[in-house]
């Protein structure tokens, strides 16, 4: 390590991953889903950073969360670096960052059922020539993973050095380790869970109800209509945001402060800063997200249960060979440390190599997007050691 490494804070180097273009791959054949239904002609939107080694051993798949997309880091073509918002995990992906694009071939794709280029409920159903809407088959976390596996195969990646994900992305990472044990070397399960508890399912259901009962939702067939289910989707997003924050972070960020005036209006207008924040987040979300996709994503999360039909979680994980880094955040009550410890206990029981740490943070579930330094210090060496092991194994051969 030289002296410049000591002061360097790679997570602060905005958009250092450079410019990446979203590409689309059409998968051949049929994808059979957990529900028993199948999909043909699935399109996958993806982006890549860095170069794949000759032996294809340095690929890292990063899986996005509920509202994410394939635009993981850096800028899109033509974006102004001064004003553009970089990708959703820009702090963690780029040269010298935890997911180091100088060393890894990094892939991120929009999940099945999404609304950012991959086939989902807003895509056209080839049988009717109209958007799928609620006729789109239900998708599970495992279905998303199967689509990712097909994409990687097409990109020449037969084994992942690592799969990394936060929140719903972490569920995908865990599903990868179990579903494709021979194709995953390392797993970073960040601010995630092996299954949601009733509290999280309850919040998801309230969000779905807000959408389903919006008169403009029209049974999911709103794409050509004049009015869109914006009210329902924005309420769902507002509820989501409350669950991503912590009591402490809300106190710090908003307190009881009023947005515009010094006195109460004695009216039902938006007055408190926290109200304006939620309204703003809701309004911004409907500009970029599809209400049907929100329904499908939250349902996929609710259905996810790594244990499946096995008598115990540990039993369900027998045969998993990856090494794991499991991270939780102290104030994250939605994806709590207690659930992460259950996962880690099961992994230890089967003898897996697992490192677990709870990062202290006041940011709640959002911490995995907002605490780059602590995550960098754990994820960067974890992934680097994964690469070192593969390289030294290659030398031996």
């Amino acid at each position, binding site marked *: 390590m030289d002296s410049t490494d000591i002061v360097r804070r790679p997570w602060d180097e905005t958009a250092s991953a450079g410019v990446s273009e979203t590409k689309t791959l059409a998968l051949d054949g049929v994808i059979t889903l957990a529900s028993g239904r199948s999909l043909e002609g699935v399109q996958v939107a993806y982006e890549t950073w860095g170069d794949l080694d000759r032996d294809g051993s340095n690929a890292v798949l990063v899986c996005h969360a509920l509202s994410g997309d394939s635009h993981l880091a850096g800028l899109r073509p033509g974006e102004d670096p001064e004003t553009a918002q970089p990708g959703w995990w820009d702090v963690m992906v780029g040269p010298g960052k935890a997911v180091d694009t100088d060393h890894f071939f990094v892939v991120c794709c929009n999940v099945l059922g999404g609304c950012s280029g991959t086939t989902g409920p807003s895509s056209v159903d080839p049988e009717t020539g109209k958007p799928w809407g609620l006729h789109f088959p239900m998708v599970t976390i495992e279905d998303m993973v199967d689509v990712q596996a097909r994409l990687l195969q097409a990109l020449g990646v037969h084994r992942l050095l690592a799969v990394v994900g936060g929140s719903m992305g972490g569920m995908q990472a865990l599903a990868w380790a179990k579903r494709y044990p021979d194709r995953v070397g390392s797993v970073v399960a960040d601010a995630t869970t092996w299954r949601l508890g009733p509290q999280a399912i309850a919040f998801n259901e309230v969000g779905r109800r807000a959408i389903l009962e919006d008169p403009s939702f029209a049974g999911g067939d709103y794409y050509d209509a004049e009015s869109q289910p914006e009210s329902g989707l924005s309420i769902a997003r507002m509820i989501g945001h409350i669950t991503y924050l912590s009591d402490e972070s809300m106190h710090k960020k908003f307190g009881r402060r009023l947005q515009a005036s010094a006195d109460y209006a004695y009216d039902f207008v938006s007055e408190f800063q926290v109200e304006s924040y939620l309204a703003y987040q809701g309004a911004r979300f409907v500009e970029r997200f599809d209400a049907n996709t929100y329904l499908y994503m939250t349902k996929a999360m609710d259905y996810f249960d790594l244990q499946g039909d096995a008598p115990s979680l540990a039993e369900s994980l027998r045969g998993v060979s990856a*090494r794991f*880094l499991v991270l939780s955040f102290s104030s994250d009550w939605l994806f709590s440390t207690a659930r992460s*410890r259950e996962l*880690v*206990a099961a992994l*230890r*029981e089967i003898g897996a*190599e*697992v*490192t*677990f*740490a*709870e*990062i*202290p943070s006041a940011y709640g579930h959002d911490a995995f997007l907002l605490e780059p330094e*602590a995550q960098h*210090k*754990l994820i960067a*060496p*974890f992934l680097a*050691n994964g690469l*070192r*092991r593969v390289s030294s194994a290659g030398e031996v051969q």
Partner: protein
Amino acid sequence: MTPRELLRADQRFIADLVPQGARVLDLGCGDGALLARLREERGAIVRGVEIDLDNIARCVERDVPVYQGDLDEGLADVPTDRFDVVILSQTLQVVKRPRLVLTEMLRVGRRSVVSFPNFGHWRVRAHLALRGRMPVSDAIPYSWYDTPNIHHTTIADFRDFSADCGAVIEREIAFVGGDGGRPQLVRVGSNLLADEAVFVLRRK
């Protein structure tokens, strides 16, 4: 190859006690130096438990799997006899519940290795007896008001304590002068003459 890092004297004794290919759990493993050494030299399968996040990051850098946990909460997640060797190196004196920690070690490992500073050492006794002051020494370097050491013990006390916890003492290594130079083994009168000790225990 990176240069071999210096291990503490007690860790060097512990390293010599670990058989080839053993499954080793180090409780309060710190920066993972001992475990990394055991993996390198003994081909050991290593796991650590540590509470401090910076230390955990050091362990990750060394590629040592580590679990963030509080030893005072026990090892409920760990199955019985999962490990060949469980290490508690210079950590017994900082835990709140030494009995829980030792009985859990005996449960999850076939052998337990415990090292600690000996409060029965003559300098410690002299400090208190002659000066009337709380002892501060190389092996016990903290002032009474900011010490993490809340459960000091002597070699004689530890013998009783381990028996009381259902352990058989297999080996006892007492030494002096661990810091820096070559430690000198103390074979006679260890409770008075040794300033550190390493015990190897197993379940009765």
